[in-house]
């Protein structure tokens, strides 16, 4: 025991643990609370409604808190025929998968969870863990609708990872590194230094591909087929209740921000101010980073409340016959341009 404690202290493991929790408590949880409220408000205002107005006073700001309290109190129902271990584990796997991605996202020039050389690669790899969790959830629920949702989700996320990675690869070729902090530093100065404006229009197209594909990876409309409410009731999380359901929900919102953050880091300068040194520096960097990320979170909400849902075969068509070939074109064109 003493040996173990000494080992922990000597190797700064506690420091790492605390460092790892900073994004969770300082950003992911408050963000999720805010984003759920924001989603309600955005949808409500798009639909001529007011949305939550009562809880907490000002525009129902405490609605999500109240919902979380409700979810905590709820009975945790596990179907009799479910595979209990998998059923219990699945939401955690999904959440870990989406939260682990935050480790190498640079929040500002002074703060990054872990400045890995393979940062971008790590994110792509670790976010694939989500699929495993979703499959676990769908399979263990022992419900045909859940299984349908899980199978759709697995097919969808795996397919869309290819255009996502290819689109990011186009930038990595220019940057010559997978380290996200370095990628950010290279885009310093005015906004025309952002990678999205380099090798015009190929990186621009790559950004479009990345954004569309990331919508599919986070299961958002028009690609919310795994949880298609009007077809599959709720997809893979049909049989979940209480906090386990909340974890799925939290993971979805965390994922929404993660893909937006990666998009803004890689293509849009991340924590760099768009206007040279105007409001520059590490503190304002957090502001720029978060506002770029939140903007794309908003765009995701906007799309969700505007567009209908694709069908599963159309979804596959878009991935394999539209996005992937175009992503290849971008990679090849950028490569050729660099050789010239």
């Amino acid at each position: 025991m003493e040996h173990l404690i000494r080992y922990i202290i000597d190797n700064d493991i506690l420091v790492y643990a605390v460092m790892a929790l900073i994004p969770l408590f300082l950003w992911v949880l408050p963000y999720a609370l805010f984003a759920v409220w924001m989603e309600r408000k955005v949808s409500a205002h798009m639909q001529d409604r007011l949305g939550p107005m009562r809880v907490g006073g000002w525009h129902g700001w405490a609605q999500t808190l109240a919902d979380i309290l409700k979810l905590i109190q709820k009975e945790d129902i596990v179907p009799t025929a479910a595979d209990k271990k998998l059923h219990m584990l699945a939401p955690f796997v999904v959440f870990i998968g989406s939260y682990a991605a935050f480790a190498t996202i640079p929040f500002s020039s002074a703060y990054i969870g872990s400045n890995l050389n393979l940062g971008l690669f790590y994110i792509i790899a670790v976010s694939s863990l989500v699929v495993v969790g979703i499959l676990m959830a769908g399979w263990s629920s022992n419900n045909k609708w859940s299984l349908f949702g899980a199978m759709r989700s697995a097919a969808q996320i795996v397919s869309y990872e290819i255009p996502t990675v290819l689109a990011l690869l186009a930038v990595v070729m220019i940057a010559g590194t997978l380290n996200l902090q370095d990628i950010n530093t290279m885009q310093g100065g005015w906004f025309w230094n952002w990678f999205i404006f380099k090798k015009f229009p190929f990186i621009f197209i790559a950004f479009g591909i990345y954004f569309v594909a990331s919508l599919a990876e986070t299961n958002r409309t028009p690609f919310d087929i795994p949880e298609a409410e009007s077809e599959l009731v709720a997809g893979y999380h049909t049989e979940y209740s209480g906090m386990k359901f909340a974890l799925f929900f939290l993971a979805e919102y965390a994922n929404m921000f993660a893909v937006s953050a990666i998009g803004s880091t890689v293509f849009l300068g991340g924590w760099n101010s768009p206007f040279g040194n105007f409001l520059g520096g590490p503190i304002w960097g957090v502001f720029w980073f978060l506002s770029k990320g939140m903007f794309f979170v908003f765009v995701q909400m906007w799309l969700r409340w505007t567009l209908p849902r694709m069908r599963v075969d159309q979804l596959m068509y878009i991935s394999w016959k539209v996005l992937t070939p175009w992503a290849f074109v971008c990679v090849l064109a950028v490569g050729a341009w660099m050789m010239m």
Partner: protein
Amino acid sequence: MPATLLEQVKTSTGRALRSEEMIINMGPQHPSTHGVLRLELVVDGEIVVDVIPHIGYLHRCFEKHSEAMTNYQQVIPYCDRMDYLASMNMDWAYALAVEKLLAIKVPDRVEYIRVIMGELQRIASHLIALGTYGLDVGAFTPFLFMFRDRERILDLFEMTCGARLLYNYIWVGGLSHDIPPGFIDKAKAFCKYFRPNIKECNDLLTYNEIFIKRTANVGILPKDVAIDYACSGPMLRGSGVDFDLRRDDPYSIYDKFDWKPQIGTGEVGTVGDCWDRYMVRVREMEQSLNIIEQALDMIPEGEIASAIPKRIRPNPGEVYVRSESPRGEIGFYVVSDGSGTPYRVKARAPAFVNLAVAPEICRGYMIADVVAIVGSVDIVLGEVDR
């Protein structure tokens, strides 16, 4: 291995499943079966091999109830509850049947008010059909926009008869109340307000690329199949059959107005696909607005009920009268034995008949398409099960 696993699984119609097929049960509690319809889907992966609808979860013995009433007028509240999204048209159809049995003519003002109410109800009903159809294919916002507009129509109804859903307004021989003062102005204001909103709905949903992809060339109902299955209403007209009872078997005063039945054109796909059935409803709303505006201008003064006794005793006989409800041909077959109660009331419910063709056009599509097809049939289970 337990013995049960070795047994051959069969569908409720007795067909044995092949090994790659699976039965999934859609409904009666499902977000997009529009009530308590239960569909037994035989699927091969995502492809639907067969659909077996199971109905009757909302059966309330309407027809038998009608025989136990003490008065012909007492049937009307039950008619309200048949197609609860188009109660006015249900009441009207029943009133038409009994009036034919009595061989009476209602005053002119009554006819005009009935047409206005019937067409407002048609718009309200189509708004729900289109809105929920948007929900079925995953678009949430158009649904609320359409509810917002329907709310205005319900306000007009509320102002007339106090009720917002089940009106009991159109009675045999007349109406329960005259329209209140100010109604005509408000109805005109509504027409003016609503016309641009149809365009908004088209911009947001109808011509949306994804929506077209989901509905065009899906669930194609050919003309001859539609006629063979006795489909009616937008379902039949969507397949390109130019048949509308308001024109082809005119009742009330529809021949006085300038309007045109709308048929499916296959504008973005094939004639008779889901998009056509959807579009027929959109265009019908415009035509209904035309009728309402003309009727509001032409409405005469006069009585709101014809002189009939409180307790009607029609001569023995039987009638079948049909009219055009938002969902198609609603027909009432009423038999009188000369007493004060109907001897037999039988309703020919359009959604019930239209639903029968759904399995025929669902086969071979995907699960998501079944939702789109059933949505485009526009069923109301209150009327299917009665």
